[in-house]
Structure formats: C-alpha cells, structure tokens
C-alpha cells in the first residue's frame, strides 16, 4: 500500500517525505508455517510508523524483517522484497552487521548490559572501531542528550546501568542505539514494561527523534499507536494464521475513519 496522504497525525507532510523502507509482496515462513503473507507497504523517512494488530498476527515478525533479525531463527525464509533506501536488504551482498548499524532496534524489556551507563553507550561505537576516549565521551553525552536522559544520569555515568529505573533503562537502550548513528530505529513494544509516566516520556522522546530518524514501532497498545505515530498499519491473521496487511494510512484517518470494516472492528474493540 502506498502513502497517499498530505498531512499526518502530527502535522508531518508525509506525501512529500521520501520512502525509507519498502516491502514488496513480502511473505515470511518459519519452516512450513507462513507467518506473513504478501505484505506491500512504504514507510516514510523521518516519521513514526506504527504496526498494530491482535496478538500473534505477525507484527514483531514484520518489524524484524527490516534488520534481518529473523535470520537468527532456524527455518525462517523470506519471499518478496524488502528495501532500505531502494536497496534490497536480503541481497547476498548485504553486510548484515552494517545493516543493523543503520537499522537499530529497541526491545520490549529494557536490556542494559551489566556494566556502567557510560560503557553501555560506548559499547556499540567501540565495536565499530572507535576507541578514542574523547570521541567516545562526546558520543555518550550526545546520545544521552538525544535520549532525554542526560540530566538524570550525568553524575551517574560510572554507575551500573542496572541501578536505573525501568523507564531510564529503556531510554538508555535508545541512547545505545543512537550512539552508532542509525537511520532507522525499530521499536518492539518499547513501553510495555513501563509505567504510564515513563511511557509518555518515551513517546515524547520518539516524537523528537522522528525529526531525524525513521521510526517503526510495534505495539499492542492501540492508544499508543494513535498518540505517537504518523502512519499506522493494521495487520491481522487469516484463517491459516498468516498475518496480512488489512489497512495502511495516516494515523489520524485510520483512527477516526478506517476504510476497512475489520480495522473498525479492531480499533473499536469488537474483536482482538
């Protein structure tokens, strides 16, 4: 499905935004089980796209297509095209490590490494060959500022990241992704382990990050998708349990005037 809108939920002019990620008739199989069927959509650059749908419809599987995380699952097989900036990312020539640097990921549960706040952020850049302490210090500070965490941890950089609150840990994980200067940030239920205030802080952070990054978020929390995203995609399972794309469009339209009855039924709580 193509973007055909003018103004999104958050006043972003989506139609003029270029496509960052694209799937073309993509299907995903885990062995003989088909998890996703024939999904085509275009995800705009520097905007937030939410993937919503009932449990088990393949939202997370769909998200993981974009940094080839499904490669790690035995028997996983992708058919169709997935592109980043027009380049097919399932091509044999693609360096997956480099891809995952460009397409970062934040997970459901905050997963800081058992090391200091500083080392958590410096970890990625070090892996990519940056060892100059001055440069690393700059990266750590910049990333923490970008993740709206600096003010809360500037005097705790040497302390264990495990001592931070859940919301702070999740923002630390976002800072850790930002430290390697990605272009796309995939978020898989990033707030489901957080309290409401920490959730709203992450949502505000996402909005400010969307100025410079392409964000794709999977959430089972429809209200969150409505609040935070510019575009929304609604996935659901067909009878054989394969996930299909039912509707894709500007969030403000999808949540006020969905075109497909199945979307209407889902967002009004009639099923799911």
């Amino acid at each position, binding site marked *: 499905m193509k973007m055909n809108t003018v103004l999104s*939920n*958050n*006043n972003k002019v989506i139609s003029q935004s270029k496509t960052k990620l694209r799937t073309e008739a993509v299907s995903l199989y885990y062995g003989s089980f088909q998890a996703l069927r024939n999904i085509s959509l275009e995800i705009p650059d520097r905007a937030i796209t939410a993937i919503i749908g009932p449990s088990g419809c393949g939202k997370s599987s769909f998200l993981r297509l974009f940094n080839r995380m499904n490669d790690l699952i035995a028997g996983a097989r992708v058919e169709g095209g997935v592109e980043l900036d027009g380049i097919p990312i399932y091509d044999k020539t693609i360096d997956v490590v480099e891809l995952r640097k460009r397409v970062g990921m934040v997970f459901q549960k905050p997963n800081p490494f058992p090391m200091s706040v500083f080392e958590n952020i410096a970890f990625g850049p070090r892996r990519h060959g940056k060892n100059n302490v001055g440069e690393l210090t700059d990266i750590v500070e910049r990333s923490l500022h970008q993740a*709206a965490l600096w*003010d809360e941890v500037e005097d705790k950089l040497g302390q264990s990241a495990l001592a931070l609150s859940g919301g702070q840990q999740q923002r630390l994980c976002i800072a850790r992704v930002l430290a390697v200067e990605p272009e796309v940030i995939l978020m898989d239920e990033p707030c489901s382990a957080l309290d409401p*205030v920490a959730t*709203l*802080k992450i*949502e*505000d952070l996402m*909005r400010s990050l969307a100025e410079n990054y392409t964000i794709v978020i999977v959430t089972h929390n429809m*209200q969150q998708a*409505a*609040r*935070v995203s510019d575009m929304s995609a609604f996935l659901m399972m067909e009878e054989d349990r394969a996930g299909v794309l039912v509707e894709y469009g500007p*969030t*403000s339209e999808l*949540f*006020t005037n969905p075109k497909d009855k199945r979307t209407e039924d889902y967002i009004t709580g009639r099923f799911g």
Partner: protein
Amino acid sequence: MEIRTVFHKKLREIQDDVLAMGSMVEKATSYSIEALKERDLDKAHEIIANDLQINKKRFNIEEKCVQLIATQQPMASDLRAIICVLNIITEIERIGDHAEGIAKIVIMIGDEPPLKPLIDIPRMAEKVNDMLHRSLDALINRDADVAKQIVSEDDEVDNLYDQVFRELLVFMAEDPKTITRATRLIWVAHNLERSADRVTNICERIVYLVTGKMEELGASKY
C-alpha cells in the same frame, strides 16, 4: 521534562483556531451593523458569502478535535477543554448566523428611507462583540470568574433590546406606515439579543472547563 508535548501543542493550535473563528464572527457582527447604517447592500452580500468561511472553519476545528480525541485520549481537564471547544464553536457559528441574518434583513430593507438614526442597535452590537471577545480571552486564560462576570452583563443587552422594542412600538402606534420598517429593526435587535445569549452559553462552557461543573449561570430574560 514536560510530557505530552504533542498533545499540548495541538490543543494550543485548536485554541488559536477558536480565537481566529471568534474574530471572523466579531467582524461579521460589526460589518452587519455598518451595512445597516450605511444601507450598503454590497457589504451585506459580502457578510453572507463570508458566513460560508465561518462554517468551514467550524467544521475544520471540529475535525481537529475529533482527531485529537481519537489519537491522544485526553483525560480530565484536557478532555473538558476539547468538549468545551466543540460546544463553543457551535455557539460562535450561530453568532455568525445571526450576523448573516442581519445582513439578509439589510437586503430586505434595501433603499427604504431610515426610520430613525440608529443608536441602541449599534450599542447592542458593540456589547455583543465585547462580551464575545472577552469570553474567548477567558477561555485561553481558564478564567471562570471573568466568564461569570460576562454572563451577568447579558442584562445590559436585554435592557437595550427592551428599549429598542419600546421605541419602535411607539413609532408603529403613531404611524402604521412605519410598521414594516420598525419590525425589521426589531428583527435586527432580536438577532443581537440572541447573540448575547450565545455568549453566555460559551461562558457556561468555560466555567465547566475550569471547575468541571455544568451549571446554568443565569437565565436570560428572553
């Protein structure tokens, strides 16, 4: 760190739209009285055409409110603010309709000679505009006291209406040939009286927004 920045930014934008709509309607009301005083039919036609813009603005604000409710799930005072705006824009739009009504009366009057110099009717219009303007300031400032004060000022408009009515009644009693012209002026005054009542409804909504209580704040005489 302020949270829900997107929501608050959009709510401010909606409030700015309400102010813009308010000034469109204030202008319509004062133009309608100018058209009446000057027998300016072009101006009257212009007011009627502009009313479409006012109606469009109202739909536009309403749509933004619906989107904000659907996407941001506002609660408590945030929810009341949107409900308040939805009610207020209906009232503002109706005040615009009253101005349009006056413009239509101006067209009906055409080039008939004036019955008398207009004094109280323009005063009514000025008072209506003053009340509307301050009520929207009270909305922005979340000021229930000012809103209640404005409601009490509706009596001034009612008294002016009484005065206009009595005066025109005398004209009609003395010379039945003036009945048509006098009746039309009474219609004009009635439109303005209704506009002031609409402002009191706006004020009731502002009190609801601030206090969370829905209350009738003083029934109009008419």
